[in-house]
């Protein structure tokens, strides 16, 4: 049944279709509803592959392949494995919630807002589904334009600066990746005489170790900026703070995952040898990011900025898990990607709701909100606990697996990273304490309304999934197992006994002549 109907393509282009429809519908109000319906339909469509997915296979499923530019060997080729699957479902899950969260907070240019959201969704699903490197690049870049508008048009006072910084940083990485993609393509053509951008074919190419080395770093930079890995993270706090709530949710929930996904999907399988060699340096950066992000979050006065820095810290765990190269850590990393999308997405939603009421995000402007908004405070508590990894909620499973796996590979890094969890508890709970507990010191806060029915409709689905993953992660882990196993095997068999070769000092070892 998977081969007959193009589920993936339908899912990718349904939002784009809705976006184009948005140009034609006369009333903004109607466009809003149409956007919600479209994104809900896309979510429902994504459940079909979720349940029809065969977890025992590592290979891509639901594959569709058509010639696009035959002259250059470019194909429209899509397919998903377990990792793509989870991230696609995460995307289609978060988009309708973001649209619903913007229902009343976006008051100007609503039509254009909805159109941007829908185009963005098409790009994001495409990124996770593409198997052809060229197609991947097109989708990757295509997500920039709507996000740029989301930040730049509907953002805060510094929105233009943040939007330009966002697009320039991302482009800086991805343009170098484009050259690397081309180099890889021609190396493959030289070796086999066949022109292709197909990921699986290119992964079979035997690259010289110096070629792997250079190409790896070109890809790495693009993804590291997106994740963002320390020290490439400086665009993130600006983008998050300025973006509207929906933009922040999507940015944290999905766009950052595109970077981590890139490591998993491209860096590791294409350049296993170089990945192993670079692992310690990257793990070091990840650990610095974990601690640095947490420390920065600790001192923020703006809740949104705090959550943004906590993202840097959380994504550090993901990258650490990826570059530990064992299945436990990798499973944890993928699950943590989903978890972070859910809990940080929920945090941004909550901050957005506070902002809608009070037009402030400063911790100092709040305090004692449990008295006026008890239901809001309860939900906030639950999400906070999920974010810091309380057992029984989703964050625990992912972080635990990452640390467990990472400890086997790099015990020192894992030990330091564990400090990040403690710090997370400190900054999150402290923030919670200062905003929710205590006396109602500000008069303006006395009249704040509790969560409305619409807001509950936004929050409850997220909370359900948070609890579901925390209590019973099996359906999710089962779907990623085969894919992560394939990646670990690929890296480890490619370079047996590589452990001796690794080390920070290897970075500085002069390498052979550059790619021909």
């Amino acid at each position: 049944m998977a081969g007959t109907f193009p589920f993936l393509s339908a899912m990718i282009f349904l939002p784009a279709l809705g976006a184009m429809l948005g140009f034609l519908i006369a009333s903004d109000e109607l466009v809003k509803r149409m956007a919600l319906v479209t994104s809900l339909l896309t979510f429902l469509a994504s459940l079909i592959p979720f349940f029809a997915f065969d977890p025992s296979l590592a290979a891509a499923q639901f594959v569709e392949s058509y010639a696009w530019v035959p002259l250059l060997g470019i194909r429209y080729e899509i397919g998903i494995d377990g990792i793509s699957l989870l991230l696609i479902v995460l995307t289609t899950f978060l988009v309708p919630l973001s649209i619903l969260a913007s229902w009343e907070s976006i008051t100007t240019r609503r039509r254009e807002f909805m159109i941007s959201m829908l185009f963005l969704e098409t790009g994001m699903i495409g990124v996770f589904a593409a198997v052809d490197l060229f197609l991947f690049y097109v989708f990757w870049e295509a997500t920039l334009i709507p996000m740029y508008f989301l930040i730049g048009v509907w953002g805060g006072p510094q929105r233009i600066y943040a939007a330009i910084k966002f697009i320039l940083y991302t482009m800086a990485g991805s343009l170098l990746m484009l050259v690397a993609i081309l180099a890889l393509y021609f190396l493959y053509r030289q070796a086999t005489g066949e022109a292709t951008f197909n990921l699986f074919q290119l992964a079979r190419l035997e690259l010289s170790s110096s070629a792997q080395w250079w190409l790896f770093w070109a890809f790495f930079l693009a993804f590291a900026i997106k994740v963002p890995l320390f020290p490439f993270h400086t665009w993130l706090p600006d983008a998050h703070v300025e973006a509207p709530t929906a933009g922040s949710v999507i940015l944290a929930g999905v766009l950052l995952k595109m970077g981590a996904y890139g490591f998993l999907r491209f860096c590791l399988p294409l350049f296993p040898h170089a990945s192993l060699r670079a692992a310690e340096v990257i793990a070091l950066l990840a650990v610095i990011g974990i601690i640095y992000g947490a420390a920065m979050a600790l001192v923020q006065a703006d809740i949104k900025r705090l959550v943004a820095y906590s993202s840097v810290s959380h994504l550090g765990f993901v990258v650490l898990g990826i570059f530990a190269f064992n299945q436990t850590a990798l499973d944890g990393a993928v699950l943590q990607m989903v978890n972070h999308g859910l809990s940080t997405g929920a945090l941004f939603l909550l901050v957005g709701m506070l902002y809608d009421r009070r037009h402030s995000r400063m911790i100092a402007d709040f305090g004692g909100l449990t008295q006026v908004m008890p239901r809001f405070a309860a939900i906030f508590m639950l999400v906070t606990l999920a974010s810091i990894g309380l057992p029984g909620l989703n964050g625990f499973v992912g972080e635990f697996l990452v640390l467990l796996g990472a400890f086997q590979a790099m015990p020192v890094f894992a030990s330091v990273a564990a400090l990040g969890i403690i710090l997370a508890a400190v900054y999150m709970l402290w923030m919670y304490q200062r905003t929710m507990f205590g006396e109602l010191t500000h008069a303006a806060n006395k009249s704040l309304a509790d969560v409305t029915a619409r807001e509950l409709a936004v929050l409850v689905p997220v909370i359900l999934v948070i609890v579901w993953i925390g209590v019973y992660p099996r359906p999710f882990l089962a779907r990623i197992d085969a894919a992560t196993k394939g990646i670990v095997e690929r890296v480890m068999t490619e370079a047996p006994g590589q452990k001796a070769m690794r080390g920070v000092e290897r970075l500085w070892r002069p390498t052979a002549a550059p790619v021909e």
Partner: protein
Amino acid sequence: MSGTEAAGLTSFLPAILVGVFALLVLMLDLFSPRDQRANVGVITLIGVALALWATLRLWGTQGELFGGMILIDSASLFFQGILLVVAFMTILLSIQYVVQEELELGEYYALILFATLGAMLMGAGGDLLILFLGLEILSLAQYILAGMRHGMLKSSESAMKYFLLGAFATGFLLYGISLIYGATGTTDLRRIAAAVAERGLAGHPLLTLGMGLLLVGFGFKIASVPFHMWTPDVYEGAPTSVTAFMSTGVKAAGFAALARVLLMALGSLQGEWAPILWWIAVLTMTVGNIAAIAQQNMKRMLAYSSIAHAGYLLIALVAGQQAGFASLLYYLLAYAFMNLGAFAVVVALERRHDRYLQLADYAGVGFRYPILGLSMALFMFSLSGLPPTAGFMAKFYVFSAAVEQGYIGLAIIGVLNSLISIYYYLRPIVLMYMEEPKAEMPSLSLAPFIFAALVLAILGTLHLGLFPAHMLGLAQDAAQGLLGG
């Protein structure tokens, strides 16, 4: 032999049509009453459309005319196609604009047609003298067009600068041609190649010097650094529709001639000219992009942007070979659509006496005039090379040609330049969508002709970006015809 020549003349039909219509338009202007002169533009449009149709019909023809003076091959037909598309869209832009600016109607269209004719000769010339002849026809028409806005100091300055520097460059070119003639004894492109090969002339001082002078002469026409100084002033002062033609048509013609000379006649000397062009390409991209950042005037920004694009096009030439030439063709076509589209928006907003040409005037335009805003955003994204637009595909193709030939460094410099360019291409978008509108904004008068130009440009930009296969195939055929056969 006379039989083949007679049959061959039909293969020259596009250029003949353009020439005939140019004369026709001149006559019509003379004998038609003043208030009916707008029809002249429509007739010009018909002439160009006919020539374009003839070009498409001729696709696949191979041959030569006038003893090898004119070459009819896929490459020259492709160039003619680009140039006629440029002419067609320029005229669409002009019909309302010339009325607004009170430019002499008949002469204006005739000169555009003559310029197109010259450019077409440059695309099809098989002899240095024909290339020169084409260049002169093109340039003379352009000198006049640049200065057509009576009583405007800027316009006169534009024409004067263009003429003086153009004449100077022509001198270089002619001197280069004579030196090459001295070294090889011929001005025929293929015989030059044969002479170089047979007599082992590579490294001959006369030939090298001649080649260098040619590079200077053409470098001026395509606005490459360091021969670019005239560009911003000339582009700013000339009527906007003429600027649109200059930045796309004249550039395409210059590259057509340069590519023919370098790849056909001097192909065996690639080792000599490629390193020079490498540096010119790097300088051209970098200077163009960095200078563009500082511009406050839309036309000046597009002028520097066109310098930068000349740099990307030079990458294609440096790469050479079939892939390089094919990517050059594709890029020129893509650039024609997106740049003319951008100029269409500029023309639609511009008012008499250079009003609404500053970047600041674009504040708030995006939501006030959604069609203009969206199309401008599309063209800016395309010019900066973001997918899924023509500009991305074209850049991808050019960079891939460079990487294929081992010019990875050049490709990296190219993408870094694209990064710089994103900054200034985003500025109109920032202004249009993210700034509050000013109190005074031009009322929109989207005349049907400008609207048609916009639609054409949008379709071209999207088609070349989303479904590039067909046109890439044609470009590849053309490259094969020029270099493989």
